[in-house]
């Protein structure tokens, strides 16, 4: 292989994929990126066996070929090279020369055949999605997944493609986020569900800027996202996803409308002395006023209050302050509506007065207030 590529493009491409390189793996080749010539330039790929990403950059090809080289090293080299065109050429199957101006590097790698083959995913018959839609969906839900091992299905984000709408749902069992967007035309005749590791969605967000059309491909246990210059392929998590509709409360009869910024700052103050384990904050709703209190043995306590639009019966309810803060962070409006039933049922949080065609709903389960 012999090619010439701009330093910026090389660095950009490597930056895009290097986060998919596993930091430790028993398979040595996974620490490498696959560098190969394609029709219009160079393709650089990385994988951790669950997720595979690749990006393409324009380059002048003199001789076709491919090789794998240590990802991080090549990335660092591309950052530190002087300005100007970079020449890459392979020597044999395992050596890559990197030259730019007077700087010359030779890296030892592994032959291209050692790089794991990507599962074949058929693109084109699954339709397209808008990257902007994906950004919105992912951005409002992926934060809510579970990071524990106890319920692996909750480690993934559910992506549901329906007739006239699509949604993403993520939950860790204690809080849930659901974001829904209308679909201009039905992409498939029936509802499709994919449970996607959030790491893959993160790559999707990074590699596909807004405003692009992304092709979808699906093969048994894998889902592929593809644009002319990038692709993300991920293993899916085996379902079925728990019935989240069932846990969405329909009979919450008390509601409050709260200023998001004020609520956030009050909760951040309370969080300082809240327990490290449970982050418990007691909220006390009364007519037009919301009181906060925290009591942590061996640490201290705190109180605060703020005005709130609430007209229901007095309610005392406990929450993990962190869950509330995270949820508020992703709310798109200045005011949020929170609904309750009683201190033992899930509370809902939604944007208030939002004129968007999207629908956004979050749930947070309370903490027991043991007295």
């Amino acid at each position, binding site marked *: 292989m012999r090619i010439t590529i701009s330093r910026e493009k090389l660095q950009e491409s490597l930056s895009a994929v290097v986060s998919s390189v596993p930091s430790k793996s028993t398979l040595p080749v996974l620490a490498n990126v696959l560098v190969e010539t394609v029709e219009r330039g160079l393709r650089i790929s990385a994988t951790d066996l669950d997720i595979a990403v690749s990006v393409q950059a324009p380059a002048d090809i003199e001789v076709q070929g491919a090789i794998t080289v240590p990802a991080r090293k090549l990335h660092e080299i591309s950052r530190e090279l002087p300005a100007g065109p970079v020449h890459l050429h392979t020597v044999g199957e395992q050596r890559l020369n990197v030259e730019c101006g007077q700087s010359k590097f030779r890296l030892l790698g592994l032959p291209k055949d050692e790089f794991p083959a990507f599962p074949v995913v058929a693109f084109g018959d699954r339709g397209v999605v808008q990257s902007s839609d994906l950004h919105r969906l992912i951005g409002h839900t992926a934060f809510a997944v579970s990071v524990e091992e106890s319920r692996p299905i909750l480690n993934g984000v559910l992506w549901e493609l329906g007739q006239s709408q699509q949604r993403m749902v993520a939950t860790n*069992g204690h809080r849930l986020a659901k974001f829904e967007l209308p679909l201009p035309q039905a992409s498939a005749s029936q509802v499709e569900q994919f449970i996607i590791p959030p790491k893959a969605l993160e790559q999707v967000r990074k590699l596909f800027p807004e405003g692009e059309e992304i092709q979808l491909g699906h093969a048994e246990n894998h889902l592929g996202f593809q644009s002319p210059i990038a692709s993300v392929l991920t293993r899916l998590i085996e379902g079925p996803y728990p019935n989240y509709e069932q846990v969405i409360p329909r009979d919450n009869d008390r509601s409050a409308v709260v200023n998001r910024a004020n609520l956030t700052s009050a909760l951040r103050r309370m969080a300082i002395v809240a327990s490290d384990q449970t982050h418990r904050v007691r909220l006390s709703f009364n007519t037009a006023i919301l009181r906060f209190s925290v009591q942590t043995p061996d640490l201290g306590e705190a109180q605060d209050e703020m005005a709130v639009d609430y007209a229901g019966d007095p309610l005392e309810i406990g929450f993990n302050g962190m869950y509330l803060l995270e949820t508020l962070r992703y709310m798109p409006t200045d005011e949020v509506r929170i609904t309750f039933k009683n201190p033992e049922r899930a509370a809902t949080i939604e944007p208030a007065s939002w004129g968007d065609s999207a629908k956004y709903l979050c749930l947070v389960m309370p*903490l027991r207030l043991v007295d």
Partner: protein
Amino acid sequence: MSASDAAEKWERLVTFARRRLTDHAFHSLTTSSTPATYNGGVLTLLVPDYFTAKWNEEKFSGELASCAPQALGHPLAVKFEIQEDRPQRVQMDLFIEHRSDALQSQTLQRSLKLNPRYTFENFVVGKSNELAAAAASAVAEVPGSVYNPLFIYGPTGLGKTHLMQAIGHAISSAPPGRRIRYLPAEDFTNAYIDAIQHRSMQQFRRQFRELDVLLVDDIHFLRGKEATQEEFHHTFNTLYEAGRQIVMTSDRAPSEIPGIEARLVGRFQWGTVANIDYPDAEHRTAILQRKLEAEHLAHAIPHAVLELLSEHNQGNVRDLEGAVVTLLAFASLRKQPVTIALAHEALRIRGIPLANQLSTDGTHKNAHPSLSIAQVQTTVAAIWNTTPEGLRSKSRLRLLTLPRQAAMLLCRDLLRSTLTEIGIAFGGRDHSTVIHSIQRAELEATRDTEFQTKLATARSILSVVPEQLANN
């Protein structure tokens, strides 16, 4: 011991199942589940919460059950239960029901520790148990009113616990929420002893006297335990006087349980005493049928084979069901469909006696060539100091019925004679009389040590020197 059994079976099962599951699934299954007990063909695993229990149940129970015949050599059902002693977390969960919900009955059911298969739907009613079944149903409908207390007795393995737990299931799943408790008498005794040691009698009494329904299994266990009987007596009175339902089971009728205070015996009989007896052949077939249906194996065993099993296995229901399980495992291992021939083979290999195994020349295969019914009668008569004629006579003097029953038992065991043959040889008795006599003999052997000794003596004489007998 059941717990280490469970661990061992689990180990073997998952090792086998590994190849059928994805790495992810395998990991999720094994990290979430801890083997707890293995009883009656059911392996129970503990999981941290309801969500995991449901998840594992749906995703893995079927797969694991299908692996069992190959992995373990016998069928097995896998159940996931919630580890009850985990402290309630402060953070409540979207997918785990809260205790104070109307779904409290589920928690109640789980805490009752009832076998989910012991329901009224799964109980096959026949002549031998219809009274007990009817009474149990009535109690489940309206506890505390008509059949109180309800005392069900009978030989082991015939469904007493099944019926009692069916009452438990029915009452706990129907509103209003009744305070119900099921436990073997042994547990009651242990709880009582605990309460004394830990000075928690008040709590103990609250637990057992503030109930709407109390179900106590194998009450004969209280035999000889004076202090526990005293306590039970008071518990009984408190509940009875408040119109609360008490149900008890035992291996024999109240008046026949040794070592129970008279006043308790009296109380056992204050309501309804119902007995469950051995099922007849038709009933046995129905039971087997129901077992198969419950396991979704309705077409696995042809009716003719079921009848064969019923006819030749006059043991209790557990034995019957065991025979089915054995047969299915055998068929699965051999990869053959179940036929009469296979049934004969399987049961013989497993040492389950199948009478009427005729060899080609018409003689009984397992019988000792020179031992005859006459010899059995002679030997037994000698040991019991009576005559073979007496055994064959119609007399119902206890002097004669006891050795007669013993002799019939030995004829069945040692000669593999059919019931009809035995009946004819003992003065033209009906084969159902023969069944009854043999059962009485078995019962007597468990109660009366003198009878047991004599029986053993006869058995050893008849097994050892038949040629010498022939000469006598």
